């Protein structure tokens, strides 16, 4: 039995993430916690998150979690989800600019307004619903998931990592942008695996079994 910790910084739907992980890893211990000792003792970490960048970073900093995440990334398998991806980058342009944890160099940008498709038709923002996720690496995180499978998104900001080699998947909505990044044993996605039906559960299952090797 291993311990999987869902990092609790008071932002977002932690319960759904924990329940989805329990579903795919019934023999593991899933804890929702902000306790430093508990996080340090966990075998795997999941950082979810919802809400505005400024509030998320403020909550992470207030609980000294930003520093802990920075220290722990690389030491054990780490999964970031939605804001849990965006906070890993260097800076977000949300809320007039927010400094983030900076373990994945790059920026978080807002979709253009208006966001137009190739026929100059306006697209809705937030990007909300099920979009095709095009895999860009052969990570073990994609095992059992078809290329271009649909995952559930709900976001107005997207990530632009400095190093294109870290992009694990892209999506096309107005333009092509990164929706998953991977850096050694860190994997983080813009979409919500805990809300993406069977393919989402498969990705979470892959994470619970991931040895942290890139591919």
């Amino acid at each position, binding site marked *: 039995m291993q311990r999987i910790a869902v990092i609790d910084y008071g932002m*977002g*739907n932690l*319960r*759904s993430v924990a*329940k*989805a992980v329990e*579903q795919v890893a019934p023999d593991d211990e899933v804890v929702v916690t902000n306790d430093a000792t508990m996080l340090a003792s966990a075998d795997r970490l999941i950082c979810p998150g*919802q*809400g*505005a960048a400024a*509030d998320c970073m403020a909550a992470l900093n207030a609980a000294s979690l930003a520093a802990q995440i920075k220290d722990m990334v690389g030491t054990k398998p780490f999964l970031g989800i939605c804001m849990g991806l965006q906070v890993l980058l260097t800076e977000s342009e949300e809320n007039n600019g927010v400094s983030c944890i900076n373990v994945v160099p790059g920026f978080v940008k807002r979709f253009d*307004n*208006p966001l137009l*498709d190739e026929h100059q038709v*306006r*697209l*809705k*923002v*937030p*990007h*909300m*619903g*099920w*979009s*095709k996720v095009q895999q860009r690496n052969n990570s073990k995180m994609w095992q059992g998931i078809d290329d271009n499978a*649909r995952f*559930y998104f*709900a*976001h*107005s900001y997207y990530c632009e990592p400095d190093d294109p080699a870290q992009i694990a998947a892209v*999506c*096309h*909505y107005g333009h092509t942008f990164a929706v998953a990044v991977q850096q050694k044993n860190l994997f983080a996605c813009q979409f*919500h695996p*805990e*809300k*993406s*039906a069977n393919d*989402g*559960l498969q990705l979470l299952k892959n994470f619970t079994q991931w040895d942290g090797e890139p591919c």
Partner: protein
Amino acid sequence: MGLAKRIIPCLDVDAGRVVKGVKFLDIRDAGDPVSVARGYNEAGADEITFLDITASSDQRATMVNVVEQVASEVFIPLTVGGGIREVADVRRMLNAGADKVSINTAAVHNPELVREASDKVGAQCIVVAIDAKAVNAPEEPPRWEIFTHGGRKPTGIDAVEWAVKMAEMGAGELLLTSMDRDGTKVGFDLGVTKAISDAVEIPIIASGGVGNLQHLCDGVEQGGADAVLAASIFHFGEYTVAEAKAYMHERGIEVRL
């Protein structure tokens, strides 16, 4: 290309049970929310909306339990509406496992609630439900107004202007119900759907009036809806969600198959 149009079954929940209203009068018990939601998930629903129609406030807590139970077993997005009056109500539902919370009458009485909630939990979690009714005389150009209390109370507020205001205040999505069409099975009010969809940047869910699968296509193609919501055609087994998706797909609408 890319983003699928969503099909959203809507479930009315009264004191913890799913109910089906038949011709607005007879309320029939249709079962346990978890098993109904599970069935819709298996049929390919892209999202599920729960509308709490519990009349008595002391049974409101029941809805939190319903959301917790469903969110523990059904891993697709859940929207919850009905009885949301303050930010604490929004938080309670999100913490229970809802992904989005729908605010209706409370937004009309206190528009600042939308801004406050959106600032706290993020626009992507806030749906504003708009109940609109045509108010123009037959010879006049079309105009719609907002009604509250299930379409009984006029507010004098123009529906398109209201939609723009709600988007500005931080709604992440609008659930638009035509009170003229609700329960009629003659199709969405495509005029108001298109007018609002064109006026705002955020996604629109069309609701009210679905009687067949072509109506769903019309909502997307003519109404400009990003998602279509229906209750009775799915509840009474006239069509399955899978059939609806196959029909839309055959007509060239991008859906999640």
